[in-house]
């Protein structure tokens, strides 16, 4: 494509999830971790990280 400045490319997946606002931060982290481990990421090939934000 003619962009010699590109030295490497990494692609991943980005997911936005809305949680019940009544959850404590600890519960929210625990549940998001579980969802990532069970479904969103395959630990054989993928790692993940997430941040919690208040709307």
């Amino acid at each position: 494509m003619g962009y010699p400045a590109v030295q490497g490319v990494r692609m991943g997946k980005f997911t936005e999830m809305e949680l019940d606002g009544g959850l404590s931060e600890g519960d929210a982290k625990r549940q998001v971790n579980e969802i990532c481990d069970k479904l969103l990421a395959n630990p054989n090939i993928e790692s993940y990280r997430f941040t919690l934000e208040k709307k």
Partner: protein
Amino acid sequence: MRFSVTVFPGSNCDHDCEYVVRNVMGQPVEMVWHKETDLRNPDCVIVPGGFSYGDYLRTGAIARFSPVMKSVADFAAKGGLVFGICNGFQILCEAGLLPGVLIRNKSLKFICKNVYLKVENNDSPFTNACPTNKALKIPIAHGEGNYFIDPAGLQKLQENRQVLVRYCDAQGKVTEEANPNGSLENIAGICNEKRNVFGMMPHPDRSGEDVLGSHDGKYFWESILSTVGARK
């Protein structure tokens, strides 16, 4: 003996499995929709190929949550024979019934062709009738057949002799050129530690008689029949 074939939305080799079991091997077979939990008392469950749930997220990642998979896991835990072919292998890996994962082919292309397989060891319920001194001609048809596992997992597979089939050339030599999809160590199929769950990417369901181009797939079905026959 009795076979049950699980059917997910997007399965497309369920009828190939039904055909080979019923018409080629002459055995009764039940089709079990993924919403069902009753496997109908089989000796062996086949998780067939296809594109369950359109391969969304990752191949097999969503199918593992279907109600029938809980029954398949319970059946496997009791020692029942579970045979995953192609997408079925991917589902069994995602469900944690087999270690590792199938990722995108090294070429990034879907590959549909006959390949040769070396049966690495016939000390399993699924390969005991397979010759180990000749290359078996069996078709593959997949975009994600590139087997991957971390080094510790690979070592465990080798120590426990869980690698049952590898890709090879027509002479039975396991070479890099004969590896169609980039699988680690040419791995085409593995079993679990207890050896009652087996997954392979190539299709013995599509190679049970000469009119299909090869009858070598029959060895796997004969192995299962002889295992169950000996158990009874």
